[in-house]
């Protein structure tokens, strides 16, 4: 079945006299039918990883196994995978039908009638039945996208590989196709590796997310785990929009000493930290609450620098009273709450919502409490 395993996969590109490590010892196991989203900033090696699975790049070291067979040296045409490209890569001289039939004609011994039936079925699934005789140049971007997906699903492969398939669509179409892709993938139940730089797609679509940075795998986990229990500071900052606020702090006894604030910790949090003293405190913008009562240990006086009303909520850029101008952090508060620039407000950073990361390695040493 379509289990896909990446075992210590590494890709090194020669670069002049030196070399560039594009993908560094990546280990991922995908179970059959799983939808894995590989996400990371540009240049993090996510596309290279996908292309190695497709066979379009060689693997420098490590193993890629499909259904327990090592496929490192198998040519792409013999891997039983289908790929959707960012640019769609539809063959311009063929009709939609020709595009969709091409893979079946080249990779299977099916008769013309069978191919015709499967193309018609796949076209019906994708809602492009009436476009079958048109050329790609006569189609809109969204239609081309559907044809590209149809071309992949008609093959009925072990694995789908998708390289930022939605990034060329406008925002509205993109969110429609996102839902449709999810539905399609769960219907077809085909193992899918989906590469994107868009963390919204990663959060909403995947069974699990694999986060890459600088060629190294940061975390493989469900979207909510990545959000609430990030393995390190990079994951915490990458997942979530607006992203998590970070403050560099020193631990002194049972208190965190920051540049502009002190933050006392309870015993259970201190137990997590162990003897690390150089720390980064993280707090998600939505966990910061505005409060009237400024007397608590975890309440601070702040000045409002910028307010971005989003309708349902306001994104507020705050500054600690003692902090220099421009050194802000972000809080999101209810859309009906009246806050204007220059206001002095008290906020609470609740201890149950904070994350603590090792200041030098970035590893998470304490994640927020999750109420059951």
């Amino acid at each position, binding site marked *: 079945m379509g289990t896909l395993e990446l075992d210590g996969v590494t890709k090194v590109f020669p670069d002049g006299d030196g070399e560039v490590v594009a993908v560094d010892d990546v280990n991922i196991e995908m179970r059959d039918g799983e939808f894995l989203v590989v996400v990371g900033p540009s240049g993090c090696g996510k596309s290279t990883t996908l292309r190695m699975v*497709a*066979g*379009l790049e060689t693997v420098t070291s490590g193993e890629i196994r499909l259904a327990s067979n090592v496929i490192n040296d198998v*040519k*792409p*045409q*013999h*891997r039983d*995978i*289908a*790929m959707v*490209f*960012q*640019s*769609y*890569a539809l*063959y*311009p*001289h063929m009709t939609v039908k020709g595009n969709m039939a*091409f*893979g079946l004609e*080249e*990779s*299977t011994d099916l008769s013309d009638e069978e191919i015709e039936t499967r193309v018609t079925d796949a076209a019906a699934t994708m809602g492009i039945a009436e476009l079958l005789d048109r050329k790609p140049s006569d189609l809109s971007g969204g239609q081309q996208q559907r044809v590209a997906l149809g*071309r992949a699903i008609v*093959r009925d492969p072990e694995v789908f*590989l998708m390289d930022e398939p939605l990034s060329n669509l406008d925002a509205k179409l993109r969110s429609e196709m996102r839902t449709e892709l999810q539905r399609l993938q769960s219907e077809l139940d085909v193992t899918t590796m989906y590469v994107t730089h868009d963390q919204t797609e990663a959060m909403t679509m995947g069974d699990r997310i694999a986060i890459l940075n600088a060629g190294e795998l940061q975390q493989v986990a469900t979207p909510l785990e990545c959000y609430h229990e990030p393995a390190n500071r990079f994951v915490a900052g990458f997942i979530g929009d607006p992203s998590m606020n970070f403050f560099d702090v020193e631990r002194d006894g049972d208190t965190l000493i920051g540049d502009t604030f002190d933050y006392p910790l309870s015993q259970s949090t201190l137990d997590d930290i162990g003897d690390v003293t150089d720390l980064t405190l993280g707090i998600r913008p939505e966990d910061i609450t505005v409060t009237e009562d400024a007397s608590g240990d975890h309440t601070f006086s702040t000045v409002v620098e910028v307010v971005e009303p989003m309708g349902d909520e306001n994104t507020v850029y705050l500054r600690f009273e003692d902090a220099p101008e421009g050194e802000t952090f972000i809080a999101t508060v209810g859309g009906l709450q009246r806050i204007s620039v220059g206001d002095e407000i008290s906020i609470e950073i609740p201890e149950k919502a904070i994350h603590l990361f090792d200041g030098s390695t970035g590893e998470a040493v304490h994640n927020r409490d999750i109420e059951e």
Partner: protein
Amino acid sequence: MTRNTDTGDDSGDALPDGGVAESGQRSGFSPVSALNERFGSDFVESSQFWLPPFLLVGLFVYGAIIWNLLISLTDFTGFGTPDYGDLDLEMYSRALADSGFVDAAINTFILLVGFTLVTLALGLGLAILIDRNIRFENTFRTIYLLPMSLSFVVTAQFWAWMFNFNNGVINIVITSLGFGRVDWIGNPDIVLWAVMFALMWQFAGYAMVVFLAGLRAIPDEHYEAAKVDGASTVRMYWRVIIPQLKGSTISASVVLMVFALKAFDFLYSLVGGYRPPNGADILATKMVREAYANLNWAYASAVAITLFLMTLGIVGPYLYYQYNRGNL
């Protein structure tokens, strides 16, 4: 010779060269406004730019063709002046009865089709090989294109030496391999193919460059998509890449065919005279020989018109294709 094809309703609008045109002149002078009305708002004003080249090209190209057609209808021969009073198609019927003309026409056709197809195939092959990220790509490209930069006179002399019966490189190689000498130029059954080979050597580089440009325009994703779709390298080129080179193929074939039609220079230089080797006479050499060696002006004109019609038969469909694609 571009002109504005607006209907002229907006002829009062500001002209790009508005400093030249005077508004009073436009309404008062009727032939100018009538012409502008018919051909567009700046037809008369812009004529000083396009009219001189229009007249020169018209006279020396199209005028000469028409004059040539007229001469082909006379019986003009030797010295003197043609008699335009008695026009008939006698020269054309004479041509059809002349086995030399028919042979030349057949040779022209063989050269045209054979040379074009073989050169296209070779150029495509070279282009595909060079496009596969080989080392020293630029060096190879230059080497293959170099023959194209040589004059026909030079390559003809060069190949005359190559094909030389006694000392030619080709015969030396062949005899050293144990085969007998071949009379490349002297044997009427072989000479046309030898000429075709030499021309192919010269023009394959050109076809390669045209195809290479076409290949470079195809995104990498098409190669990758075809591979992932299960196509072998050969099938990928055959079904996905080469069909996308239709435009390049058409452009390259037109140029190659036109060169094949005027291979006169090559044959003239090969033997240093109007009489090409037996078996290699083509319409172009026949035409020049009839005109300047035999002074059969009218007959040569008829051959020229035949050649012109063949060229038109090649270029016409190409222009029509380009016109349909909106490129003209």
